[in-house]
């Protein structure tokens, strides 16, 4: 038997109304959101690293400026999302602890390295492209603060994808070595990007409930198909070859058929095995630990100089 509170919550969801921080909500809804929003935030700040390492080496001042602005945006997105998670009754500090101790995850796409400048382009074009596909529906997430944070993020994210594509456009129009750099980056980022949408619907466990609660609006496969359909013509414009021999237009379906991703590799990446995930977390832990005396100093100064209320 549903209580009045549960009924009110169900009515709001059914009417596609927003749930706000002071509304009653099922504990599972709250915990699911905390985890999802926090892991999204963690992804943003971990995502600063694979591109951030190229700031000092960006090959033109214009590209350097753009990259700094992009990575700065990612820190900002992390901040918007931690703020949204905090509205559910958890402290940012606690969420960072969960990241640092691996109790919460981040998108495993950031467990890949970025060995060349072209990787910065590929990340913008493919990874941000896939992220946008995931994120646009989230703007209508049932939880108000998350949806509003996503609206802000989506507005900022579109330049991220455009700058990535532009980097690659310059490369494919350039020297042989630059063209090869671009193709090589695509070879390494294609499959991880389409796996960003998660396991196939047949294997995915949380879909049904999250869709009922308005947390998830489209299935993994729906999002993946949409992304592939949109991206193939973009690759053709670049004159680059997508490393999938099974990729072909299916007239009947009106979509591209594509090959089977290596879900074992995906599982390994999600588990965070290997040197790169360890490095990603180490950077965060060290920044946090090395920053402790700084944060303490600011707090001590504030206490010493507190204005009487």
């Amino acid at each position, binding site marked *: 038997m549903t209580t009045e509170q549960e009924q009110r919550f169900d009515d709001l969801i059914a009417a596609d109304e927003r749930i706000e921080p*002071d*509304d*009653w909500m099922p504990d599972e809804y709250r915990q699911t959101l905390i985890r999802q929003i926090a892991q999204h935030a963690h992804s943003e700040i971990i995502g600063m690293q694979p591109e951030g390492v190229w700031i000092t080496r960006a090959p033109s001042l214009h590209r350097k400026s753009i990259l700094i*602005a992009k990575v*700065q*945006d990612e820190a*900002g997105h992390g*901040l*918007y999302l931690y*703020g949204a998670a*905090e509205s559910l009754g958890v*402290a*940012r*500090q606690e969420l960072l602890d969960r990241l640092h101790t691996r109790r919460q995850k981040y998108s495993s796409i950031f467990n890949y390295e970025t060995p060349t400048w072209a990787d910065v382009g590929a990340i913008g074009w493919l990874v941000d492209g896939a992220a946008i596909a995931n994120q646009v529906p989230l703007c209508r997430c049932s939880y108000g603060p998350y949806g509003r*944070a996503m609206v802000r993020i989506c507005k*900022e994210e579109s330049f991220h994808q455009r700058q990535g594509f532009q980097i690659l456009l310059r490369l494919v129009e350039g020297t042989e070595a630059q063209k090869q750099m671009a193709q090589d980056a695509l070879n390494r980022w294609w499959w991880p990007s389409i796996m960003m949408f998660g396991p196939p619907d047949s294997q995915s466990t949380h879909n049904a409930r999250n869709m009922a609660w308005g947390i998830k609006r489209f299935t993994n496969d729906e999002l993946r198909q949409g992304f592939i359909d949109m991206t193939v013509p973009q690759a053709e414009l670049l004159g680059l070859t997508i490393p999938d021999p099974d990729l072909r237009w299916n007239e009947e379906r009106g979509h591209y058929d594509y090959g089977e991703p290596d879900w074992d590799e995906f599982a390994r990446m999600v588990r965070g095995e290997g040197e790169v995930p360890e490095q990603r977390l180490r950077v965060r832990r060290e920044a946090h630990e090395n920053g*402790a005396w700084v*944060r*303490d100093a*600011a*707090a001590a*100064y*504030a206490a010493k*100089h507190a204005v009487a209320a």
Partner: protein
Amino acid sequence: MTGGWPRWEVFLRARRGLSHGHVGSVHAADGETALQAARDLFTRRQEGISIWVVPSGQVVASDPADQDSLFEPADDKGFRFPTSFELPSEVDQM
């Protein structure tokens, strides 16, 4: 020691003529650094010309449990709205 810096709610006046609206929050040890953080986080794309930051703990909020007693009573006082007054058409532009 650090439990983290306290949270501050951020309000932004987008442009002259509009009032401040809530845009999100930052963590900072004091008001001055909260202001600087809010400027960097919320105005990079010229989204605002004036920032207020308020310690989150200072916000006094209405209790959702009181929603009915706070907001329902306004429901049956339609005479506060001009549309509830029928007037001859010659003077209806009032």
